[in-house]
């Protein structure tokens, strides 16, 4: 299974959900399907995408928030799994695409390669309330459907091949992404106000 296939299957289901992605290939694969004002791409600060997602989810309980994370990023901030488990907003879904590789920075093997480190087990051990694993696009989308029931915070570990796009680049400056994403949230907040 390729991450791009998962993201392609996920894309039509995103609706008005708020999406935070990690850097590099993951961000690019989502962007290439068509940017939306609901997407925030964290192109650096590895490990913090899940933290950003938590901060949004706690402050926007009326919105569904999905974080597209990766094994390399999660390994840089393992404490986040415990913090997510403690506060567990039900409107938050964390997808960890585990390709066993630091693909965007040279393709070096990450600690999850060959099943040495089991991120789903770490998430469960951290106390994340619903941890699902997927090895096929079908299983991935089944897990997503469960996550989107909004009843409990969900962590999905999706095993994917270590392949990415053949190009990188976005017509979106980084602060511009901040301004537009925040403005979108603010505008929906105004609409929701009585």
């Amino acid at each position, binding site marked *: 299974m390729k991450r791009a296939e998962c993201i392609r299957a996920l894309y039509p289901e995103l609706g008005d959900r708020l999406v*935070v992605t990690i850097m590099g290939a993951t961000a690019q694969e989502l962007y290439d399907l068509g940017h939306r004002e609901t997407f*925030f791409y*964290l*192109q*650096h*600060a590895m*490990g*913090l*995408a*899940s*933290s*950003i*997602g*938590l*901060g*949004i*989810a*706690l*402050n*926007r309980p009326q919105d569904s928030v999905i974080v597209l994370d990766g094994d390399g990023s999660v390994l840089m*901030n393992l*404490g*986040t799994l*415990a*913090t997510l488990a*403690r*506060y567990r907003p039900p409107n938050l879904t964390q997808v960890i695409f585990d390709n066993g590789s630091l693909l965007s920075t040279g393709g070096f093997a990450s600690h999850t390669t060959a099943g040495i480190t089991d991120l789903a087990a770490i998430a469960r051990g951290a106390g994340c309330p619903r941890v699902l694993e997927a090895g096929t696009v079908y299983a991935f989308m089944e897990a997503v459907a469960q996550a989107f029931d909004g009843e409990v915070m969900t962590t999905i570990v999706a095993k994917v091949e270590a392949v990415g796009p053949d190009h990188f680049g976005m017509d979106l400056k*980084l*602060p511009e*992404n*901040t*301004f537009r*994403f*925040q403005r979108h*949230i*603010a505008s929906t*907040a105004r609409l929701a106000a009585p």
Partner: protein
Amino acid sequence: MTVSRDNSKAVYQGIKSAGIRFITALPETWLVYLLQLAEDDPEMRLVEVAKEEEAVGIAAGAYLAGTPNALLMQNHGFLGSINGIVSLAMLYRIPLVMLIAHRGHWGEPYPWHTQGGIVTEPVLRALGLPFEYARDPLRVGGQIREAQTLAWSSLSPVALLLSRDLMED
């Protein structure tokens, strides 16, 4: 030396009157009463993290969601969060209101705090971040409001260093 309960209250009232209702923190001795006040306040949401750099991400998320918020941490936690401050907050123009317990400086008896205490101000200067020292309980509330105002107008992290004069009796 004990942590000042009264001055912790003054800091907390400053946080409240700045309109802040969301705090991300890692507990530390000087912040004990402050965090207790936050925990006991039904109007305040307190998120405690495993390591301070996480707090930068959570605070950024809160900002994107439109919520005025503050980070409470020790200066060593600030030093451990530099990449998040640089490569998330500064890079993406996301304001942070950082209330930092300035351990390890003038009057510090504990050797383990001293190197972090000595380099905190130079690191803030190297990052180009606006900062002030909070020493006076009568002034600290105003300083927190001003920090919040400047952070949101400049779209920059700002730091208020909570000093020994303020935090200890």
